[in-house]
């Protein structure tokens, strides 16, 4: 049974208008939001400058906690980036139409998450100014990075993923940028003219476009899976108890999809409300997103249980003690919070009444993401607190410097996203039109016949239609 995801009576022009209107000069609320984001970034910048000058000490990092929130947040942002790939690429391949109104901002989210995540491997270094040594370049000394290290794989994976996602986002936007070009004046027109690359919307261009799009989607899916698997290899390739877990690649990917979906719900609700995209980001689509999130949450829960079970019934006493410490030790409140938010809270997504109630979903999605952030923290820190050598056991809590920078990263993401929604169409106009087109053919032939013309149609006397490309 196909739900009525979108109203098939929407006119093409209306779609253009609605979306283009969202890009008009912003009202006060937007500027306030942007200012908040910039304030958050400033806090982080101040903290980072302090840390750059003085050393890593102010972050409360110590022996044995050599990693803490920076790495946890890094993994969190990488995880969030899987949202776009999931919606753009995976759902595209299985021809899930309902993704069409929402995949654009999801794809943008992917790119910006990666841009945020990419900051952290730089910030957490002791000698930030030498960070480019991780990249393989021909140096006089003939020194290359250590290709055996998961951190170097990270460098490759993330740059590849970022490049590909950005490219995918851009390419997918070309037809829309052409629409923008045709309706813009001033600096915008110049910008869109350049960016739309001479798109005219003729048949040949569309055919090539479709091929490229599909190809990139197919390319991006294994890339996304491998990127987060590689990021999980930061932990899985080590010897530490609690990290040295073979299920980490799928676990991290599941967690990534989970936090990505939750973030989609959050932004979905925000965009729908502020830009009045009610007709495009419809409740049925919301429901489908929630159901998808719920499914992924269950997968994540299952993988969690596997990890606990394998440790509990296994022979590695050190890992088992660590697991018990996670449940009852000093990190227990956060750990239990993570379990609740990650495994119990998603059940709210199983109830239709709750699913359809957007304020509830907004709050729930934020908490789901909080749960996923906690999950990353609970992976990084307890292992370092309770490793093999009991003399080295220690509990450490992050300092304001770390919290500031983590806090600021959300501001950075927010700022990028806010700029995006005003400069680029956050709903994919052409794909919504496709969606409407298919619905018309599927549901009501007469509407289709009335509205859709073909070259072979008898056109005598017909008025030129307003439906544009």
């Amino acid at each position: 049974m196909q739900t009525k995801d979108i109203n098939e009576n929407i006119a093409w022009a209306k779609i253009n208008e609605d979306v283009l209107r969202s890009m008009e000069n912003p009202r006060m609320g937007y500027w306030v939001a942007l200012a908040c984001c910039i304030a958050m970034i400033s806090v982080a910048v101040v903290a980072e400058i302090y840390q750059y000058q003085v050393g890593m000490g102010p972050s409360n990092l110590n022996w044995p906690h050599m990693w803490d929130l920076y790495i946890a947040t890094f993994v969190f942002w990488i995880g969030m980036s899987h949202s776009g790939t999931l919606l753009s690429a995976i759902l595209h391949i299985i021809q899930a139409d309902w993704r069409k109104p929402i995949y654009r901002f999801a794809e943008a989210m992917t790119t910006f998450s990666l841009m945020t995540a990419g900051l952290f491997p730089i910030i957490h270094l002791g000698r930030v100014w030498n960070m480019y040594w991780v990249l393989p370049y021909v140096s006089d000394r003939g020194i290359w990075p250590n290709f055996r290290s998961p951190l170097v794989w990270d460098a490759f994976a993330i740059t590849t993923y970022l490049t590909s996602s950005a490219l995918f986002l851009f390419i997918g936007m070309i037809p829309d940028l052409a629409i923008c070009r045709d309706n813009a004046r001033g600096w915008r027109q110049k910008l869109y003219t350049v960016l739309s690359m001479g798109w005219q919307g003729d048949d040949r261009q569309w055919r090539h476009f479709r091929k490229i799009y599909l190809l990139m989607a197919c390319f991006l899916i294994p890339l996304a899976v491998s990127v987060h698997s590689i990021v999980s290899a930061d932990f899985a390739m080590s010897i530490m108890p609690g990290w040295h877990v073979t299920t980490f690649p799928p676990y991290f990917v599941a967690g990534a999809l989970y936090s990505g979906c939750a973030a989609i719900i959050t932004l979905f609700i925000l965009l729908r409300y502020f830009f009045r995209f009610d007709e495009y980001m419809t409740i049925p689509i919301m429901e489908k997103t929630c159901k998808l999130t719920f499914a992924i949450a269950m997968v994540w829960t299952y993988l969690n249980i596997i990890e606990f079970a394998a440790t509990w019934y296994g022979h590695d006493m050190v890992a088992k003690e660590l697991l018990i410490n996670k449940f009852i030790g000093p990190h227990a409140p956060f750990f239990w919070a993570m379990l609740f938010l990650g495994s119990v809270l998603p059940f709210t997504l199983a109830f239709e009444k709750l699913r359809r109630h957007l304020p509830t979903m907004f709050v729930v999605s934020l908490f789901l993401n909080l749960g996923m952030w906690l999950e990353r923290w609970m992976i990084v820190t307890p292992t370092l607190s309770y490793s093999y050598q009991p003399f080295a056991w220690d509990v450490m809590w992050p300092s304001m410097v770390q919290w500031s920078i983590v806090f600021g990263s959300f501001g950075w993401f927010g700022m990028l996203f806010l700029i995006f929604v005003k400069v680029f169409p956050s709903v994919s106009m052409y794909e919504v039109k496709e969606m409407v087109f298919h619905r018309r053919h599927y549901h009501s032939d007469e509407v289709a016949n009335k509205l859709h013309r073909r070259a072979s149609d008898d056109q005598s006397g017909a008025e030129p239609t307003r439906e544009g490309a």
Partner: protein
Amino acid sequence: MSLKNILENWSHYRQTIEDGGHYEYEHMWGMAIDLNKCTGCNACSVACYAENNLPTVGKDRMRKGQGMHWLRMERYWDEPEMGGEEKEYQERGGSFLPMMCQQCNAATCEPVCPVAATYHTPDGLNAQVYNRCIGSRYCSNNCPYRLRYFNFYSYYEESWPEPLNMQLNPDLSVRDKGVMEKCTFCIQRIRTGKDKASREDRTVQDGDIVTACAQTCPTEAIVFGDLLDQKSQVTKLWKAQQVELGKTKQDKANTELRGYRVLEGLNTDPCVMYMDRVREA
């Protein structure tokens, strides 16, 4: 490098480092620490501070866990699972364990450094290259013994007010912030010893090179030497205890011998052998 060459010598290239791999080891520096003799006096740790320009960090930073003790003297109390019964007092005293970088042959820290700032030398040492380190701290996280220490601050700004800085050993550097460091088996002394031997046109003899900790130990509990030198004291001790490199579980003819390596089941292949402490009952 022809295909034929690779195919013929494949098994040779595949060997792990501890089997000699694709280069011959000149030395394999190792230690034997007798916990029967070790009294836990901590002289080794202070000598290490003196020899290797280790900064004192002060109470607050030390309490936060940002200390720089390359060699730490661990002290454990008896617990029921390890043979001590639940008594009113610590009747068997304490278990002291001096821990310094074990210079593992299959070091877990080496593969994970993104910039190859830590690598295995032909001497069998795990070397830390300070000027290559960018401070990602993965190596320290991956050390199961937690024996790597990070410069969280530029300690040199405060730790050596004049004229304390005149005590600094010019044979090695004072590290800046953002750099990882750890016990090097006094590599500066090894280098000096090897240079002296080559100046005198001979090979390094056992006793030529001694680490600061081994030298200062009042009970001579720490023995340092070349495990490849069959005549060295350390090799004799390893042989006497029937402990061998390259194993995750020693299989000894005499299982009562008390030599062992810490956490060797993790396949780190450390070059430091300990001999269990002894108590009357």
